[in-house]
C-alpha cells in the first residue's frame, strides 16, 4: 500500500530525514517510535504534503501513485489522513460545515454522490457517539476553544467520518489523560479493518497498550534503525532510546 524508499527531507538547510525506508501493507498497523528530534513528525508531515519541507531524495509510492507529486487535498482524496499533533483552531469556521465540505470533497473524488443533509447528520451523530463527543461540538467553530482532549478526539472523529485508507497518527497520545487516551484508542480500534492501514507515531509505549501494532519501528537520526514486532516497544520502554542510540554509535 505504502512504500517509502530512501526518503530524504530538509527543513531549511537542515537534513532531517536521511534515507528512510518503510513498507506498509494493507490492514497493517505500524508504530514509529523514536526520541525527540528524530524526525517522526517531519515524516508524518512529508507524507501529508505540508509546506516547509524539501524532499531531496527517495520516493513514496501510495497504491501505485507518486505521493510526493500530489497536492495535500489530492492525498486526502486518495485516502491519506493525518491526525495532527496540534490540531489547528479555525475561528469562525463551523465544524459541521467543515466536516460536510471535507466528506463531500472526498466522496466526490471517489466518484460517490454527495450525502444529503439527513444522511450526513445521521452519520455524524453515529460517529460522535463512538468518540464520546457531545453534539454541541458540531455547532462550534473547528477546534476553537476546544480542550486538548477534545481536539484530539475531534481528529479521530474526522478520521472516523472520512474513512481513510491510510491514517497517520502524529503523537495523538500527547497531552491526553488516561481516560481520554482510552476513548481515542477505542475510536481508532473500531476503524481497524483489513482494508485500512495506520502509522502511529509516538514517543511513548503507553499508546501501544491500547492500539496494538503489527510492527514497531525505531526512528533515530532520520532513519529507521530497528524494526520488529510489538515486543520491541516494550524493550524500548524498559531500556530507553539511549540503548538504540548507543548501538548506532557503536
Amino acid at each position: 500500500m505504502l512504500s517509502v524508499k530512501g526518503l530524504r527531507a530538509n527543513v531549511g538547510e537542515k537534513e532531517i530525514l536521511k534515507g528512510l525506508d518503510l513498507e506498509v501493507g494493507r490492514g497493517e498497523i505500524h508504530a514509529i517510535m523514536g526520541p525527540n528530534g528524530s524526525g517522526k513528525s517531519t515524516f508524518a508531515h512529508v507524507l501529508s504534503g505540508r509546506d516547509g519541507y524539501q524532499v531531496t531524495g527517495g520516493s513514496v509510492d501510495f497504491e501505485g501513485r507518486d505521493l510526493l507529486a500530489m497536492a495535500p487535498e489530492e492525498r486526502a482524496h486518495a485516502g491519506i489522513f493525518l491526525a495532527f499533533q496540534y490540531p489547528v483552531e479555525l475561528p469562525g469556521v463551523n465544524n459541521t460545515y467543515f466536516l460536510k465540505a471535507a466528506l463531500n470533497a472526498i466522496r466526490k473524488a471517489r466518484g460517490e454522490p454527495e450525502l444529503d443533509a439527513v444522511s450526513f447528520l445521521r452519520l455524524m451523530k453515529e460517529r460522535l457517539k463512538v468518540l464520546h463527543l457531545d453534539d454541541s461540538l458540531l455547532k462550534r467553530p473547528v477546534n476553537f476553544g476546544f480542550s486538548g482532549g477534545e481536539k484530539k478526539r475531534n481528529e479521530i472523529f474526522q478520521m472516523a467520518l472520512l474513512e481513510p485508507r491510510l491514517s497517520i497518527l502524529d503523537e495523538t497520545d500527547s497531552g491526553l489523560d488516561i481516560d481520554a487516551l482510552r476513548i481515542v484508542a477505542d475510536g481508532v480500534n473500531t476503524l481497524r479493518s483489513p482494508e485500512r492501514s495506520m502509522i502511529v507515531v509516538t514517543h511513548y509505549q503507553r499508546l501501544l497498550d491500547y492500539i496494538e501494532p503489527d510492527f514497531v519501528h525505531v526512528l533515530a537520526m532520520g532513519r529507521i534503525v530497528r524494526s520488529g514486532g510489538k515486543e520491541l516497544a516494550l524493550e524500548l520502554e524498559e531500556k530507553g532510546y539511549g540503548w538504540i542510540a548507543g548501538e548506532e554509535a557503536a
Partner: protein
Amino acid sequence: MSAELGNGFDRWLAGAEGSSRPRLDWLETQRAQARERVRDQGIPSNKQEAWRYTSLTRLLEQEFVPAAARVPEVGPEVIQRLSIPGLDANRVVLVNGRFAADLSDLRDLPAGVRIGGLRQILESDPDALRERLNGVAGDAQPLFTALNTAGVDDGLVLLLPRGVHLPRPIEVVHLAVATDSPRVAQPRHVVALEEGAQATLIERYLSAGDSLYCTNSVLELSLGRDSVLKHQRIQTESPSAFHIAGVFLSQGSGSRYEGINLGLGGSWARTELRVLFAGEQAECDLKGLYLAGDRQLMDFHLDVEHRVPRCTSRENFKGILYGKGRAIFDGRVLVSRDAQKTDAAMSNKNLILSEGAEVDTKPQLEINADDVKCSHGTTVGQIEPEMLFYLRSRGISAPLARRMLCLGFAGEILDALTPETLREQVAEQVGRRLEQSPLT
C-alpha cells in the same frame, strides 16, 4: 443665481434649483447655508486628515447630473427579484433617491408611526421635520453632507412615537436604475425614535444591473431615552457605482444602538459615521465588514464622541482585500473631560489576500477623562498557512479552503445580521463575491 461653488459640484445641485420641491423658508435657509459651506470647503486635499488616504480624482472625473424629480418607472417584479426570500418586513422603496409609494409596503404599522417620503412629508406636515432636519447633522457638516443638504429633496422619514415597538423590521430598498446620463442621487433620511421606542432598520443599497451612478446619502438618526434601534446597512451598489454615505447618530440616555455596516459593492465607497452621546448610560455597538476587490475603494470613517459619563461604545470592523483592492479605516473615539466611566473599545482587523491590495488603518483614542476604560487594536494579516493546510489535508480544495477561512474571518460580523434569512442571503453574497475573485 448663486455663485459658482468652484469645486466641480455645481452640476450636482443644478437640477435642484428649478424643481418643484416645496418652498419653505427655513429649508431654503438651510440649503443656502449648506451651499456656502460647500463653497468654503473647496476640494478636499490629502493634506486634510479626513482625506489623507482617499483620492477624489476618480469621482471628480465624472459628470454626474442630479436624478430626475419624478420617480423612474420600475415594475414590482424588479423589486420582487431583488427581495430577500422569506423576509417579513415593511418595505420602503426609493428609486434613484425618490420615494416610490406604490412599490412600498407600509401595512399594519402601529398607530402614530410616521413613515414615508421626505418630500411628501415636507409638503403635508413640514413642522414634523423642522427640528429634525439637520438636527443631528448640525451645522459643521463635512463636504458631502453639506452637498446633500444643499440639494435636499427626497428620502425616507421614519418617526416612532413614545413606547412604540415595531412588529417587523423596516426594509429600505435604495434602488438605482440606469438613466440616459450618469446621475447623482442625494437622498436624505430622517429617523427618530422617541422615548422607549424600538425598531429594526435594514437599509439595502442596490442596483438593477451594472451602471455608472453616484449615491450621496445622509441619514440622521435620533434615539430618544431608552429607545433601541438595530440598524443594518448593506451596501451592494453596482460595480461601477460611487457610494457616499453620512450617518449621524445622536443617542439619548439609556438608548441602545446596534449598527452593522457592510461595504460590499461599488467602485468607490466612502462612509462617514458620527456618533454623539447626548445622554448617560447609552450603548453603541458598531460592526462593519468590507470587501475591497480589484480596483475597489472602501473607505470608512468613524467618529464617536463621548461627551457625557457612563456610555459604552464598541467598534468592530473587519476587512477582506484582494486584487488591487484598497481600504481605509479611520476610527476616532473622543472622550471629553466630563465623560467619566466611559467604556470604549475599537478594533479593526484586515485580511489581505494579494500583494496588490492595500489598507490604511488608523484607530485613534483621544481621552480627556481619567476614570475610563478604553482600548483599540488593529491587525493586518494574511491567511495562516497552517489553517489552509489543515483544510486541504481534509480533502478541501485550496480555493474553497481560502473561501471558508475568509468567511470564517467575516463570520463574527455576518452572524450579527438578523433575521436569519438576511444573514443567509448576505453570507451567500459574500461567498459568491469571494468565489468570483482570484484569491491569490
